[in-house]
C-alpha cells in the first residue's frame, strides 16, 4: 500500500501544480455566411461590357484559439496562442493551424517589460487583438485584419503581423497612462524561406543557400523595426496612439500580385526591395452607452524605381466603428471603411457594415453582421492590353457564435 501511495503522490502533486500554474483557456467562433458577388467590366475603347455574379452560402468554424499562460516566478510570464482556422483538418487539407504567439515576458517594472519570442507587436488599437475574435463584437474584422480576405489584402502591406522582441510599458501620468512599445522582427514573411511543392526550399534572396523552411535569410537592413506611443485613461475608457514601422516590401516576389498588375506599368518596378513606412493612428473609447473605434493607416514608400517610372505605391486605410449598448448584454454598431490601393492602379474601395451582438451568458455571444464591399478600378490593363474599368460589389451576411472556452 505504501509503495502504491508513494507512486501516486508525485502524479497528484504534479497535477495540482499544473492546475494552479498553467492557465488554459480559449475561444472559438462558428459562422454561417451568405455572400453575393458581382463584377462589372467595361472596355471604354471598344464599348464592351461584361458582368458576372456568384453566390455562396457556407457554414464554417471560422477560428478556434487555444491559449496557454504560465507565470514563472514573479518576473516571467510565458504565453502561447495556438490557432486553428476554417474547419481545420490536416486529413482533408482544409484551413490552417499555426502558432500565432509564443513569447516570454520579463517584467522589470510596470513601466518596463521585455517580451521575447513570436508576438503580435503593438500597432494601433486592433493589431494585438486581431485574432481574439471573442473580444470583438463583430464577425468580420476591418478589411486589412480580416483573414477571409487574405487573398485580396496582404495584411503585411498595412500592419506588422509579428515581431520577436518588444520593449514596452505604461507610465502613469495623472488619470492617464502613457503606453509605449518598441519592437523588432523578421523581414516581411515573403522573404522567409519556404517549402516548394517539389519538396525543396526556396527564398527570393538566395535560392542556393537555404536548407530550412521558415528562416529569414535577409540581412539586418530588411528587418522590421517599429513602435507605438499612446495614452490610455486609467479606467481604460479612452485610448489613442500613433504607431510607426520601418521595413521593406518584397517586390522580388511577383506571385503575390494579380496578373493585371504584372502586365501594367508596375511590372517595371518589381524585382527589388521597396523601403516602406507604415504609419498608424488610433482612437477608441466609451462614453455611457456609446463606444467607438477609429483607425487610420498610411503606407508610404521610398523607392527609386517607383519614382523613376512614376508608379504610385502609397496605400491607405481608414476604419471607423460607432456602437451603442442597448443593454449590458446587447450592442449594435455601424462602421465605415475606406481605402485606396494604388500600386500603379487607380483603385478605391468602401465598406459599409452594421450588426449586433448579444451576450447570451458569460461564455456565449451571438453575433450578426451585414457587410457591403464596393471597389472601383479604372484604367487597368486587361487582355490584349486594352484598358478596362471594373466595379466589384460583394455583400455578406454573417451569423455566428463566439464561445469562450
Amino acid at each position, binding site marked *: 500500500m505504501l509503495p502504491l501511495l508513494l507512486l501516486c503522490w508525485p502524479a497528484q502533486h504534479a497535477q495540482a501544480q499544473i492546475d494552479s500554474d498553467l492557465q488554459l483557456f480559449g475561444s472559438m467562433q462558428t459562422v454561417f455566411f451568405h455572400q453575393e458577388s458581382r463584377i462589372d467590366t467595361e472596355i471604354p475603347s471598344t464599348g464592351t461590357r461584361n458582368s458576372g455574379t456568384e453566390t455562396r452560402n457556407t457554414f464554417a468554424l471560422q477560428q478556434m484559439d487555444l491559449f496557454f499562460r504560465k507565470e514563472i516566478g514573479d518576473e516571467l510570464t510565458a504565453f502561447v496562442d495556438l490557432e486553428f482556422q476554417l474547419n481545420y483538418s490536416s486529413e482533408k487539407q482544409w484551413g490552417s493551424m499555426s502558432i500565432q504567439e509564443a513569447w516570454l515576458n520579463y517584467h522589470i517594472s510596470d513601466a518596463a517589460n521585455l517580451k521575447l519570442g513570436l508576438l503580435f507587436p503593438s500597432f494601433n488599437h486592433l493589431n494585438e487583438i486581431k485574432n481574439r475574435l471573442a473580444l470583438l463584437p463583430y464577425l468580420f474584422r476591418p478589411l486589412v485584419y480580416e483573414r477571409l480576405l487574405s487573398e485580396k489584402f496582404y495584411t503585411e502591406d498595412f500592419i506588422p503581423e509579428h515581431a520577436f522582441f518588444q520593449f514596452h510599458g505604461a507610465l502613469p501620468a495623472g488619470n492617464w497612462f502613457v503606453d509605449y512599445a518598441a519592437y523588432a522582427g523578421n523581414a516581411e514573411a515573403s522573404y522567409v524561406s519556404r517549402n516548394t511543392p517539389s519538396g525543396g526550399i526556396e527564398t527570393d534572396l538566395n535560392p542556393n543557400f537555404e536548407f530550412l523552411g521558415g528562416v529569414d535569410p535577409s540581412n539586418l537592413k530588411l528587418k522590421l523595426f517599429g513602435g507605438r506611443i499612446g495614452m490610455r485613461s486609467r479606467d481604460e475608457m479612452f485610448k489613442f496612439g500613433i504607431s510607426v514601422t520601418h521595413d521593406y516590401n518584397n517586390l522580388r516576389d511577383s506571385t503575390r500580385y494579380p496578373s493585371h498588375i504584372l502586365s501594367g506599368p508596375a511590372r517595371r518596378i518589381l524585382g527589388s526591395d521597396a523601403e516602406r513606412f507604415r504609419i498608424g493612428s488610433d482612437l477608441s473609447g466609451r462614453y455611457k452607452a456609446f463606444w467607438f473605434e477609429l483607425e487610420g493607416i498610411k503606407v508610404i514608400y521610398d523607392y527609386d524605381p517607383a519614382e523613376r517610372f512614376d508608379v504610385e505605391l502609397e496605400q491607405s486605410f481608414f476604419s471607423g466603428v460607432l456602437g451603442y449598448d442597448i443593454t449590458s448584454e446587447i450592442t449594435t454598431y455601424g462602421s465605415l471603411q475606406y481605402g485606396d490601393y494604388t500600386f500603379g492602379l487607380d483603385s478605391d474601395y468602401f465598406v459599409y457594415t452594421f450588426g449586433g451582438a448579444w451576450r447570451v451568458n458569460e461564455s456565449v455571444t451571438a453575433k450578426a453582421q451585414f457587410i457591403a464591399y464596393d471597389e472601383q478600378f479604372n484604367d487597368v490593363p486587361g487582355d490584349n492590353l486594352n484598358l478596362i474599368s471594373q466595379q466589384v460589389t460583394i455583400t455578406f451576411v454573417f451569423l455566428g457564435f463566439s464561445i*469562450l472556452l
Partner: protein
Amino acid sequence: MNTTLRIGLFLTLLVCASHTMEAQTAVIVNRSVPASSMGLKELLDIYTLNKAHWDDGSRITVFDLKRGKTKEAFYEYIDMSEEDLQRIWLRKQFTGKARPPRSISNEEELIDMVSRTPGAIGYVTERNIPKKSNVRIVARVKQR
C-alpha cells in the same frame, strides 16, 4: 429625565455606529503585502489589472466577489461597472498580460483565500473579518 434622554441618545448613536460598522466594506490584503494603506487610484489600477506587482516586485493576486452589496459598494467606490471590468479583464487575459481576478462566492471563503495566498488582495464587509487572521485592512469603503 435628563439621564434617560442621554442614555437614549447614547443608545441611538451606538445603534447608528454599529449599522455604519456593519455596512463598512474593507479592502484586505495578505500580511505579506508591503502596502499599509491604499488610495483609490491604486485600487483602480489593481482591479483593472494595470498594476500586477507590489512595490517589492511580488505578484498581485486579485480576488473578487461574485455578487452582493459589498461588491456593488466596492465597484461604486472605484467607479467601474461590472461589464466594463469584465471587458478589461478579458482583453488582458486574452493578450496574456494578466490573470483575471478569481471570483469567490462568499466573503468567508474570500478572507480565507486572501489569508492563504501571498500577495493577495480582496474586499469584504469589515465585520466579517475574524480578529485573528492573516489579513490586513488597507482601505475602507462606506456602503450606501
